[in-house]
């Protein structure tokens, strides 16, 4: 259950933020993050189960409930904005929080407000991230719509078998089709290039290869586990 409250120094003077909560196995990213994300993680499209609308996100682990396969260093320090802002929302130009999010706490973590009731560093970072997210979400929507309108999005079948005999197949994930991208007419290519879409499309399509390293690392981890046992 969520319990939303508008954030205020008066009310939340004692509130603290823990940064070490377990991230989900898939988290949204905006198009401005593609560059950084694509270096270490697969960027995929998937559908919102309530609305059917596409959104972009990165795959952090291959199975729900498992911790991220790559640690912060292996991700080159990349933390998706959606994780930085986890628990925080924008509501009518104001910041709201989900009081029931496990990140919030009154005993450990960094205080949200200073003694003089100003936003502390950790909150200022969240404010900054929220601002970027807010603007970026609209741009990402336009990017996705453009890809849709030009029939560039295609479903991807992802099947993995691991050395311990486990088989995983990831469902409901989509990527950008390079074949369709290469069939665009010249005018579209220039238009997309100027808008930055070409680059973003290649980043999404290319990042699919990151599944190789994720699968490899997960396989190693599984083998180490069996050896220990």
């Amino acid at each position: 259950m969520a319990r939303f409250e508008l954030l205020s120094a008066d009310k939340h003077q004692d509130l603290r933020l823990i940064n070490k909560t377990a991230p989900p196995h898939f988290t949204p990213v905006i198009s401005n993050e593609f560059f950084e994300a694509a270096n270490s993680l697969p960027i995929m499209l998937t559908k919102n189960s309530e609305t059917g609308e596409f959104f972009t996100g990165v795959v952090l682990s291959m199975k729900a409930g498992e911790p991220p396969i790559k640690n912060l260093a292996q991700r080159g320090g990349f933390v998706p904005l959606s994780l930085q802002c986890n628990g925080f929302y924008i509501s009518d130009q104001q910041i709201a929080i989900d009081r029931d999010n496990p990140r919030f706490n009154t005993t450990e973590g960094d205080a949200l407000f200073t003694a003089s009731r100003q936003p502390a560093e950790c909150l200022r970072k969240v404010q900054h991230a929220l601002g970027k997210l807010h603007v970026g979400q609209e741009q990402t929507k336009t990017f996705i719509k453009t890809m849709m309108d030009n029939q560039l999005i295609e479903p991807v079948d992802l099947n993995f078998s691991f050395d311990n005999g486990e088989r995983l197949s990831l469902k409901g994930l989509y990527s950008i089709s390079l074949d369709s991208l290469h069939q665009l007419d010249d005018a579209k290519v220039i238009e997309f290039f100027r808008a930055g879409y070409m680059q973003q499309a290649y980043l999404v399509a290319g990042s699919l290869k990151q599944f190789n390293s994720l699968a490899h690392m997960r396989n190693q981890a599984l083998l180490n586990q069996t050896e220990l046992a």
Partner: protein
Amino acid sequence: MKPIKKIVIVGGGTAGWLTACIIAARHKGREASGFSVTLIESANTPIIGVGEGTWPTMRSTLSRIGVSETEFFRQCDASFKQGALFSRWTTGEASDAYFHPLMLPQGFSQINLVPHWLQQNLHKNSEQNFCDTVCPQGVICQKGLAPKTISHAEFEGVANYAYHLDAGKFAPFLQKHACTQLNVKHVIADVTQVKLTDTGDIDKLMLNEEQEISGDLFIDCTGFRALLIGDAMQVPFKDCKDILFCDTALAVQVPYEHEFSPIATHTISTAQSAGWIWDIGLPTRRGVGHVYSSQHISDEHAERELAAYLGKNAISPRKIKIHSGHRETFWKNNCVAVGLSAGFLEPLEASAIVLIELSAKLIAEQLPVDREVMDIIAKRFNATTLYRWGRIIDFLKLHYVLTQRRDSDFWRDNLEPSSIPERLKDLLLLWSYQSPWFHDEFNQVEEIFPAASYQYVLYGMKFKTQVETDTLQNTAKYAERLLRENKNLTEKLGLSLPYHRDLIMKIHERGLQTV
């Protein structure tokens, strides 16, 4: 040499526009070499608007002609159809009902589950119905769930589905698509005269206002009037009221109690004293109609039964005469009939629109390049189409001959051996020893009713087939696994699929994605 480039369709109902879309979409890109599709529609002819039920084939048809499923739902008041519930057909009692779903039994291409199910029932002494044993769709229907979620792309789903639609909105929807996207030429005029050549081909059509239209192939979609195939080409009509007795329908539209009333996701067909009542749920209203044999009951009696079904008097029901039967041939010279001009049968298995799709598809795919080869194509078309009509008549009759009802002349007369086609008689005898499965009896490409349909109806209506217990041992384990998997799938889908009306509301509001 006389190349076939100019296709002229007469009639602007569902048959005309659907045929125009299917042919134009298949031959898109040939305009440059002079290929064209023209549809002539009379301003004065009322559209009958046959049947509001389609088959799953409509999914691929709509997808192939390039319309959006979202727009189809929004503009044609469409809903999902996942099969039909046949009520009171077997014993006539209130509790008597079975489903004919659109999903195949589990593992259908690998194994025939019928004998396994029959044997289970023999041993357990308790009757688990066939449909729920082998497929999840009956339960999905009973719970009122949709066959897919908002995350599924257009024309995709977890359960097989067809549509219910408002035929009065479907034809204009197709018309817009045909004219704006597929370059179909639309002429509004009455055909006043059909001019033939010396060889008996249609040469041209004279229209009012001194216009004339020539063409290479003429498609008769003029409905019961059969202006070209009947009047001009003189192809006789082959009646089948000696097999199927229903000849009249009373149709009404019934509003929902409120805007959030559940929408049935299957056609409900309830047997009466001399026919049956259809009940089809659209998002906006229900379409209900009584199909009956006027040889057995009067119109007044039929109206009373309809009122009893509705729980109130039907307000001025529309009366439709049904001439069960079809043309002796469908393609003669350069004229081919599609839709009601080709024939009509009672809508028990929603065969009207699917026959339009299949015929139009066959014409589009086999379209003769030159007049010289047209007669060869026509011969094949006639053989295939005649076969299809025959199988539909057999399948419809099957519903009547499996009944245990003896409560009226109508049901008793239906069992009269002279009214049962020979082929069906043979099959019934055969099926008392072995159950139908997909390759033993049905070998035609695009077989109109798959063997699975026969299984659902036969065993839904408690048909008895002998089981050779010894022959089942090899496949017993596999069958058991499939039945278990079906149970799990039924449970899973029952929990994860949205309610039918909720999904339709979401499609109206948000739309489905194209991938």
